[in-house]
């Protein structure tokens, strides 16, 4: 056992590092949060586009993609090494992840050669931003229960319906979309997958105000939107199969929760003064921090086990499937702890104070426990795919979609 890179990995890491040092600034304690992201006078969108283009020109944008689409055919371990190094630098995040992480792999697998040539390089370069249009007001965890309708009309499809929780729809150029082409078929069999130009007539994007006050999600309305059949990905009726490709990628992409962790709780407890005593001298506090530390350490070492398998060229085990459940719940608990530590004043928000990170963690965690698969759905997935337990008895099995009870 050792934590060292192989000589090839070390060489690759040094290459990443050298380019990053020449082109970006290392994170400091001050810049180490999204809020303080150094985008200067530019908008996050402009800053992200500039950074993406810089990476693309130097060959770092999508290193695991084949050369013809702007990558260098990097191995999975090289991809992780790049991500590890990039994350140490203060660079814009939050604009391209969904497109590159979810739309990219689907296009790579299901688009025609001409489409790949047309769409993948601008996606990697950051010229075109992609979003994902899956969830609907009545189809969240049960996303296959979606109702947006596509009706074939010659060489085109006419789409009507509503999508929701669409991150970045308001600045996206294209989206990947699952719709129901036949409500007379069983739930999973009546779905078909497309990509769509977000500037198409009939698409309306409305931001959703989140409980944090921010708006990174949208509702997206489709009113007689025309999508050429050539933009269908996979066969008619294969929509679920194609969507699963994306959802598997989403679970990898959402992964670890950013924000306060055991270390921040520990630092806070050491600083805090209550009648001249530090909180860290309180036994209940010590026990909680010990448990959070064990969870954080367990996640970190789980990741290292996955990396070890990739480094050997093996397929990793299912161990990474625990990441989001553990980290989102830990984030919520530590956010709570931080606020409790300040007693009555824990409710007061001050943009200038470092303390706000505990309040943001507490708010953000409530969303993180839902995004990309709720805790409950992720536990079902562990139970069914990892432990091999049988599926839940279902009230919708064997029924045509239109006959499934919907409560409305």
């Amino acid at each position, binding site marked *: *056992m*050792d934590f*060292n890179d192989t000589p090839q990995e070390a060489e690759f890491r040094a290459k990443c590092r050298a380019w990053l040092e020449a082109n970006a600034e290392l994170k400091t304690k001050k810049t180490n949060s999204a809020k303080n992201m150094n985008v200067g006078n530019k908008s996050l969108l402009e800053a992200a586009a500039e950074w993406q283009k810089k990476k693309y020109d130097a060959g770092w944008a999508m290193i695991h993609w084949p050369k013809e689409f702007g990558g260098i055919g990097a191995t999975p371990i090289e991809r992780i090494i790049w991500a590890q190094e990039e994350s140490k630098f203060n660079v814009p995040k939050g604009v391209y992840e969904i497109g590159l992480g979810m739309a990219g792999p689907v296009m790579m697998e299901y688009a025609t050669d001409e489409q790949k040539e047309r769409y993948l390089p601008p996606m990697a370069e950051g010229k075109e931003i992609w979003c994902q249009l899956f969830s609907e007001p009545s189809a969240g965890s049960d996303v296959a229960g979606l109702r947006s309708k596509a009706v074939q009309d010659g060489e085109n499809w006419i789409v009507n319906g509503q999508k929701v929780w669409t991150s970045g729809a308001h600045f996206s150029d294209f989206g990947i979309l699952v719709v129901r082409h036949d409500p007379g078929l069983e739930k999973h069999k009546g779905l078909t997958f497309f990509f769509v130009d977000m500037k198409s007539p009939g698409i309306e994007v409305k931001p959703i105000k989140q409980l944090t006050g921010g708006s990174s999600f949208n509702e997206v309305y489709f009113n007689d939107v025309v999508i050429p059949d050539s933009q269908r990905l996979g066969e008619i009726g294969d929509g679920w199969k194609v969507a699963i490709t994306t959802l598997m990628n989403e679970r990898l992409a959402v992964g670890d929760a950013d924000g306060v962790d055991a270390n921040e709780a520990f630092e806070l407890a050491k600083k805090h003064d209550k009648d001249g005593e530090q909180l860290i001298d309180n036994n209940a506090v010590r026990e909680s*921090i*010990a448990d959070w530390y064990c969870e954080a350490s367990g996640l970190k070492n789980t990741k*290292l086990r996955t990396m070890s398998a990739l480094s050997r060229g093996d397929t990793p085990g299912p*161990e990474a499937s625990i990441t989001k459940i553990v980290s989102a719940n830990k984030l919520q608990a530590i956010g709570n702890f931080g606020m409790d530590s300040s007693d009555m004043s824990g409710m007061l928000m001050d943009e200038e104070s470092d303390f706000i990170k505990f309040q943001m963690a507490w708010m953000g965690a409530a969303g993180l426990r839902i995004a990309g698969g709720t805790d409950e759905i992720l536990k079902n997935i*562990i139970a*069914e795919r990892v432990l091999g*337990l049988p599926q839940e008895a279902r009230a919708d099995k064997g029924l045509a979609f239109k006959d499934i009870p919907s409560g409305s």
Partner: protein
Amino acid sequence: MNLDFSDDQKLLQEEAKKFLTKEDALKINRAVMDSEKTYDQDLWNKIVELGWTGIRIPEEYQGLGLSHLELCVIAEELGRQLAPVPFSSSVYLFTETLIEFGSEEQKHAILPKLVTGDVIGTLAIAETNSAPTKSNISVELKDGKLSGTKIAVPDAEVATHAVVVAKNGDSVSLCVADLNSDDVDITVQRNIDESRGYYSVSFDGANAEVVGDEESGWSNLEKIMDHAAVLFSFEQIGGAQASLDMANTYAKERYAFGRPIGSFQSMKHKLADMYVALTLAKSNSFYGAWALSSNAAELPTAAATARVSATKAFQLCSQENIQTHGGNGFTWEYDCHMFYKRSKVLSLNLGSLPSWREKLIKSLEQANIKL
């Protein structure tokens, strides 16, 4: 990056698993539980023959001269099948102390006999129902003679020798005593796990020899506890995995309300929680194994992290395995209780969960380690 065992180590683990399965260690454990015995002599003899007691003992003392990592994979298998043998007492506690702190003379005298099984060792720490500390140890070493009583000493009946934590003037020393001496009285103590033996051991002027620096007994003990925490954490993850596997099998086979109980979300989520706890524990145990085998400065933190995670995982998995089995899980006939009881014994044997959380926080305060 390689936070994993080598192919050779995995092969050793596979062989250990096959051996214990062939011997049917779990059935032997049940037989021990049903008898007055506290270990199985025949299984122990075979383990000695396989050379496992000498894994970490250097070749110059007739051992195999392998690393802690080989010991970790064996520990996981012993934990998975609850092998009722004095392996942990003799190997993780006694042998580790001798290797770390014994004089050349002591090593030459004792280590080869541990390899052959002529010496079986244990470690005597506890005295009362308060956690032992540097200042409350009362068993005393004076002029080479031990006096006082230790309790909850594992495997003291089969053991020939014990490392005893003793007050020595103003400090605490570790010393080795011959348990077969007439000045030593050993009495079995009833404990929650019928497949393990715990004893009170009274010394009435028994001869004992200091191991390691006589002033540093307490810090040396802490180091041995760190070693043992990592090694036991592998027994714990082995036991946790076995408990999860049993629950999983049962949840697929047992029908209620016309369907397998494993198809209910409440059961799925329970088993998923067990998997999550076990995965965290396993990854932390791997980290502990790295720190132990490379003698890293992080060892106190890594050992406490492995101990806390593995204790929580084994306790959760063994208790929820009973719950999954319903009424059957509460019977003597089903194996669930053997894991439940072992999980509790293993959660207490080196000190309780709260005391290890405390050790973890102390190590973080001292080392200022960041994730």
